[in-house]
């Protein structure tokens, strides 16, 4: 069968990223031909500045070698730009006369440096700053000449000026306006930047309009509108880029400022896509690489005929790649209507920080001199995190939040190469940086796969993302909504919404309706989907045991040697001699190897084989126990102190309250494990302030706490509210759990969830909205009616017997 033919015009980062994304989805769908105007394979254009300044070589910035194209069966024509598209015959013709037919065409022609149309602009010695050829010409000029003028004081111009200076030239930067980098910086930050660059020996000519470039055989001087002149040997024009759309325009494809595309990256011709700097999407043209990668993903999705990717535009951030100057800007840094600004200024130390806040969310940031928190601020912006709780300390950065919060990752940029990032797998910062640069990694998933960092408990994920961001600069982009796994582009929230809105009740429904890439998903998405299904449709969805992690499938905790541990539920942690006797007898009968009191006031019986489980469960359930669910993403335990029944300080009966809460909540499945505690007085002996839901007795009733965690990163709870009766405690608890069950992402503990959505939001839903709270509580009780079936009793009576017996036993 003949494959369809895909032609890519433009062998740059955007185009090749699209091809890579496409190969991940559908490696064999197309016969692919790539045309590039430059004589090189695809390279990292972002790193041209370090090449110019001599900090990197050209070989170091190649992304796809010629061998890579060959290995993937891609035909590559370099140094041969496409000059004509025949849309009727569906073929392209290159400068050398090659004609290649296409079924699908991708235009990724990038942009051209804008050359100001002044007399002399075509003289030898006048360059743009765009590609390897420009950089080579600049380096060559620097060998024989001394003076350079860079026209344009934007990001690119300053990087070019710095690079030329590093090559030994005397550089003057000419800028039309009175503010450098006015598209990224406000005036105070720009003034600091200018001062710092002047100290490094760059000269600036501000508010100067170029009138002509003069010279006989090559450039000799530049004349300005006010009549003044400066002698020079080289002029670099870095006043901006223009989408390169001539090819598309000549072919009659609709263009405005760029080639106009819709949210699927399709042009007005249904066979022709366009992506990268050459396009105009919803009125915007992008010149940074992060948005291009997001576009590439969407375009590949449609080329692979999946048909659901949508590009919604991007929030961008900028880092100036001038060694020794720290500058970061992102979002709506200029502020505006409805915005507030938080400012810090220390001109003496060369530090300036501005945060723009809108509706309790970070909307923009400009950092100069101290950009360590740039990646963190950008993350807060992209995720739309509610910052009202940390507002006072926000400007001083993450370090000032202390190490106790989940949002507070340690500072990646401050770390030395030897410092360990991933404490589970023992991966140091240096290894991660090396993997990113040497293997050309761009995403968190890549880094996880190659280094194992963040691949176990995940608590260093934020740190790894920061390292990615600080290593790659603006090359790094996290999609605003991360896909669940590589089976899909949909995020957790999108999948859950689809399950609710389209009334999907089974995994196969999800795979089919949401165009899953693998027919039966993978080990990452299946447990998540299964949870979303049973929590959304408790009475309809069928729990898929093969999509459960082993512990939840066999209702015990797998240990490192393949044996299991069994923890019977002891409500509120209050037991009796009879219960203890039953546990002791079972432990002896099945020769349990360890008996351990757990942190949650339960008794753990360790070292049982799978075959023994239904038998010990029978003995335990006969004695009145139910499963302790100590193995699941579920409600775990309610820890209590003895309270007013015995304690001379106790003000309420915390044990009774704990037992009632446990009776209410046991058996419920949650996005991640869920722990409770009830303390009988504010001395808080049950440690309720590090639990997912904590209750602390006070003289007048109960204080309710949420979002605590005593694990990987300690987080003290937030106070939700105070209530007076045990009935209220139960209603608020059930409502809070239900909100968590319905809205948190799978494997998201309450602590990071509360930080993500904000305490104010949870108060609004649970405390302020009485009708809403009642509705949540009602749904919780309805779900519990299905959930409170003891899995041990069922299995002791013979359910799922195949799970606990060998298929066959042979001797010898």
């Amino acid at each position: 069968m003949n494959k369809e033919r895909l032609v890519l015009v433009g062998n740059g980062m955007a185009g090749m990223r699209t091809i890579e994304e496409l190969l991940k989805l559908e490696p064999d769908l197309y016969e692919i031909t790539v045309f590039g105007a430059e004589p090189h394979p695809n390279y990292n254009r972002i790193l041209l500045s370090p090449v110019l300044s001599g900090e990197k070589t050209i070989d170091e910035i190649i992304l796809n070698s010629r061998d890579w194209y060959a290995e993937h069966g891609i035909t590559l024509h370099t140094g041969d730009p496409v000059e004509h598209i025949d849309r009727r015959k569906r073929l392209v013709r290159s400068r050398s006369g090659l004609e290649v037919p296409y079924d699908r065409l991708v235009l990724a022609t990038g942009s051209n440096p804008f050359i100001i149309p002044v007399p002399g602009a075509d003289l030898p010695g006048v360059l743009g700053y765009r590609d390897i050829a420009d950089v080579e010409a600049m380096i060559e000029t620097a060998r024989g000449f001394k003076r350079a003028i860079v026209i344009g004081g934007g990001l690119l111009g300053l990087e070019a000026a710095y690079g030329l200076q590093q090559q030994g030239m005397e550089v003057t930067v000419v800028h039309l306006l009175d503010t450098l980098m006015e598209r990224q910086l406000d005036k105070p930050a720009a003034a600091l930047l200018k001062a710092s660059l002047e100290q490094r020996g760059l000269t600036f000519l501000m508010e100067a309009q170029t009138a002509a470039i003069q010279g006989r055989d090559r450039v000799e001087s530049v004349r300005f509108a006010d009549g003044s002149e400066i002698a020079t040997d080289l002029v670099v024009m870095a006043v901006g880029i223009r989408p390169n759309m001539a090819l598309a325009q000549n072919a009659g494809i609709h263009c405005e400022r760029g080639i106009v595309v819709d949210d699927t990256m399709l042009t007005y011709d249904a066979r022709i896509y366009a992506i990268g700097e050459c396009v105009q999407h919803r009125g915007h043209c992008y010149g940074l690489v992060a948005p291009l990668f997001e576009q590439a993903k969407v375009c590949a999705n449609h080329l692979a005929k999946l048909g659901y990717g949508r590009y919604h535009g991007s929030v961008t951030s900028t880092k100036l790649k001038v060694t020794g100057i720290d500058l970061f800007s992102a979002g709506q840094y200029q502020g505006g209507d409805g915005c507030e600004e938080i400012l810090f200024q220390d001109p003496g130390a060369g530090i300036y920080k501005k945060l723009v806040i809108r509706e309790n969310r970070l909307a923009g940031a400009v950092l100069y001199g101290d950009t360590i928190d740039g990646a963190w601020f950008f993350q807060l912006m992209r995720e739309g995190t509610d910052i009202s709780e940390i507002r006072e300390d926000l400007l001083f950065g993450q370090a000032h939040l202390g190490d106790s919060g989940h949002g507070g990752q340690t500072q990646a940029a401050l770390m030395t190469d030897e410092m360990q990032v991933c404490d589970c797998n023992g991966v140091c910062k240096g290894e991660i940086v090396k993997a990113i640069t040497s293997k050309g990694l761009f995403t968190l998933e890549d880094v996880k796969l190659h280094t194992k960092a963040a691949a176990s408990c995940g608590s260093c994920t934020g740190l790894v993302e920061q390292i990615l961001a600080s290593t790659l600069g603006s090359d790094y982009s996290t999609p605003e909504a991360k896909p669940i796994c590589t089976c899909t582009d949909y995020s957790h929230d999108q999948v859950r919404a689809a399950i609710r809105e389209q009334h999907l009740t089974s995994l196969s429904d999800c795979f089919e309706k949401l165009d899953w890439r693998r027919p039966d998903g993978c080990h990452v998405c299946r447990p998540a989907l299964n949870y979303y299904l049973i929590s959304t449709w408790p009475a309809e969805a069928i729990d898929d045991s093969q999509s459960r992690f082993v512990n939840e499938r066999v209702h015990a905790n797998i240990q490192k040697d393949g044996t299991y541990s069994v923890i019977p539920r002891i409500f509120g942690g209050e037991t009796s001699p009879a219960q203890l006797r039953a546990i002791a007898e079972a432990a002896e009968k099945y020769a349990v190897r360890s008996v351990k009191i757990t942190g949650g006031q339960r008794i753990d019986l360790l070292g049982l084989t799978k075959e023994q489980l239904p038998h010990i469960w029978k003995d335990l359930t006969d004695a009145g126990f139910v499963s302790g669910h100590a193995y699941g993403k579920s409600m775990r335990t309610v820890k209590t102190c003895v309270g007013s029944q015995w304690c001379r300080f106790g003000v309420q009966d915390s044990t009774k309250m704990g037992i009632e809460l446990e009776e209410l909540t046991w058996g419920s499945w949650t996005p991640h494990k869920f722990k409770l505690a009830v303390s009988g007085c504010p001395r808080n002996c049950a440690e309720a302030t590090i639990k997912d839901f904590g209750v602390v007795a006070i003289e007048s009733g109960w204080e309710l706490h949420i979002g605590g965690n005593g694990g990987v990163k300690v987080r003290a709870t937030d106070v939700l509210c105070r209530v007076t009766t045990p009935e209220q405690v139960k209603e608020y608890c059930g409502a809070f759990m239900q909100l968590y069950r319905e809205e948190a992402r799978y494997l998201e503990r309450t602590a990071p969830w509360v930080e993500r959505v904000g305490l104010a939001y949870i108060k609004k839903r649970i405390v302020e909205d009485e009708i809403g709270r009642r509705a949540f509580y009602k749904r919780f009780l309805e779900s519990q009616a299905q959930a409170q079936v003891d899995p041990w009793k069922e299995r002791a009576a013979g359910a799922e017997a195949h799970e606990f017996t060998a298929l066959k036993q042979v001797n010898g």
Partner: protein
Amino acid sequence: MTAVVDDMTWLEVGTLDEIPRQGARVLKREQGDIAVFRTAADEVFALLNRCPHRGGPLSEGILYGRNIVCPLHNWCLDLASGEAKGPDEGCAPAYATRVEAGRVFVCTEPN
């Protein structure tokens, strides 16, 4: 597959119905247990029931496509070859299988 191992020992281990789809059952042996897997497409594979990483019981993992993910540390192995998926390196011995009229046979000598 059968041509290569004709002279080897084929052992009937049970019926296809006894193995859950996307799941596994265990053939217990003194020389080491063998996990017998059944994919969503009803293909049957067999691997030594020890992950090459830290010896985890592969039969308890989550199965998707032709992959099994070890329950202990999430290594992902190819069911047909037993090879770990890159960048991890390691291999669990694989055993030939065949299904005849719903009866499952495993060749007890590794490939």
